[in-house]
């Protein structure tokens, strides 16, 4: 190992490229993020607490985190079904559906926002039939939920898909030939192998939905305490020049994202130690 490391060092440019990488990373990412935390330290704990415990902030955080979790859960279930259909079955248009899973990644969020609003508004293609059933989507919290589902689809599908593709078929065959029913095999054999990937997908979809702004604000209605998401409240506080409020909310959201990154890293380590590569 040390011999390998020594040999690798024979290539030139390590000091230069590493120095440039760290400098550029610091200028663009680390210093700006540190500035945010530094700014929040200017607040006394009491001020910090007062901002966060105000009714409007609490409701915005509740809307963002609650609906993001609900949407990520829907993505977990529907994502699993989509992955199963794409990996295990052959049907007309399969490759096209496989490709369009990435649309929420690629479509600018503002475009997704206006498109979903047009679709689910009371006179929209889907909004009209839903309104006839008495369900209002656009300009209600349901609209936020729908937008968050849209934005989260690819995370679950693209995390779970390669794992299901690489799953050793012999394990399933063994379970089947030992007399397990198909359902038992799926629940007891396949699902545990996919668990780390499923949880990673859930966490990534949740993290994205919590911070999402563009695709949500058009359809949300943005009524304070009801359908106002936390990122929008940050923007509103900024436009009111209430920087302290914006900073406090942002710090809470950043800390949650860091916890999620940490959890995802752990999950991936767990996945590597559990599922032997084929």
């Amino acid at each position, binding site marked *: 190992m040390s011999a390998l490391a020594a040999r690798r060092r024979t290539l030139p440019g390590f000091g230069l490229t590493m120095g440039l990488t760290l400098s550029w990373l610091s200028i663009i990412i680390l210093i700006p*993020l540190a500035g*945010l935390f530094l700014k929040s330290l200017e607040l006394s704990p009491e001020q910090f607490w007062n901002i966060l415990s105000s009714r409007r902030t609490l409701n915005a955080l509740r809307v963002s985190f609650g609906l993001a979790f609900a949407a990520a859960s829907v993505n977990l279930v529907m994502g699993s079904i989509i992955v199963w259909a794409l990996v295990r079955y052959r049907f007309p248009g399969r490759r096209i559906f496989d490709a369009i*899973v990435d649309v929420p990644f690629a479509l600018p969020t503002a*475009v997704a926002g206006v498109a979903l609003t047009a679709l689910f508004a009371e006179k929209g293609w889907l909004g009209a039939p839903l309104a006839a059933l008495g369900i209002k989507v656009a300009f209600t919290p349901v609209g936020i939920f729908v937008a968050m589902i849209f934005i989260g689809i690819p995370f679950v599908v693209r995390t779970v898909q390669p794992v299901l593709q690489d799953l050793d078929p012999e394990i399933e065959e063994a379970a089947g030939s030992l007399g397990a029913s198909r359902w038992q095999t799926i629940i007891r054999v396949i699902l545990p192998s996919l668990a780390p990937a499923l949880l990673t997908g859930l966490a990534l979809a949740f993290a994205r939905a919590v911070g999402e702004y*563009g695709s949500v604000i058009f359809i949300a209605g943005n009524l304070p305490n009801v359908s106002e998401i936390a*990122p929008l409240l940050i923007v509103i506080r900024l436009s009111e020049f209430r920087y302290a409020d914006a900073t406090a909310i942002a710090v809470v959201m950043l800390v949650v994202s860091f916890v999620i*990154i940490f959890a995802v890293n752990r999950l991936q380590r767990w996945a590597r130690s559990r599922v032997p590569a084929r």
Partner: protein
Amino acid sequence: MTMQIADSVSLPASDAKAHAAAARDNLRTEPRAVRIVIIALAVIFLTVFVVLPLVVVFAQALSRGILAYFAALAEPEALAAIKLTLIVAAISVGLNLVFGLVAAWAIAKFDFPGKTFLITLIDLPFSVSPVISGLVFVLLFGAQGYFGTWLRDHDIQILFAVPGIALATTFVTFPFVARALIPLMQEQGTQEEEAAISLGASGLQTFFRVTLPNIKWGVLYGVLLCNARAMGEFGAVSVVSGHIRGETNTMPLLVEILYDEYQFVAAFAIASLLAMLALITLIAKTVLERHLDEGQDAGDH
């Protein structure tokens, strides 16, 4: 003789393999009704949540006919937004391309402690809310920010101007090129570069003549995704732009303004350009992924 033996052995073997495969498939599939329900659920879900939103963009953009569509795109405000979007994308993609190549060289070609942590730091912008990505620059360069007074004294405009928009976009698109290149370059190892160096090539010659040709599809892949995100970024840019009409509005920001003014045809016309960008990006991405897979297979043999 050896050939014949090989043939006579391999034929029954492949036959047996086919039988075994058939038996396997029975153990690894579900009843027909279940299969149909699962496929139907997947197709309906993707149609409602992905296909219809895409279709509705074009339907709305063309709802008053093709002439109204092109008239909306020819508005000076629309042209200014398109121009600004292209400028900002060029700056941030350029910066991130250079950074991505430099970072990937350091990370993929050398061993050092803390590598995983460094990659996590590069990935950070993926998990920061776009609004916060803009906010951090307001806190640095805004009137109440750390450098606010200094910038005002020296008459330098960063916020509510092109530099701020480019910075926020660079922040948001920071990981794309590096993340496309690191795994690719790790997989390719260092043997070819070492050979070049030992034959007397300089570091830069080695990079441009040996490394770059090997990773060209990966570079293109990273640039493609980086560019799509740079042109489409909304939240971060919205916070730093100041929404000065005709000056600091990128295409996504103009979509919002026109939409809020009930100019739906114009809003969806701009949106349709961005949707086309997304579709072209996806098609190119699919093609590039095929190239990258082939490259890897060739490397395996």
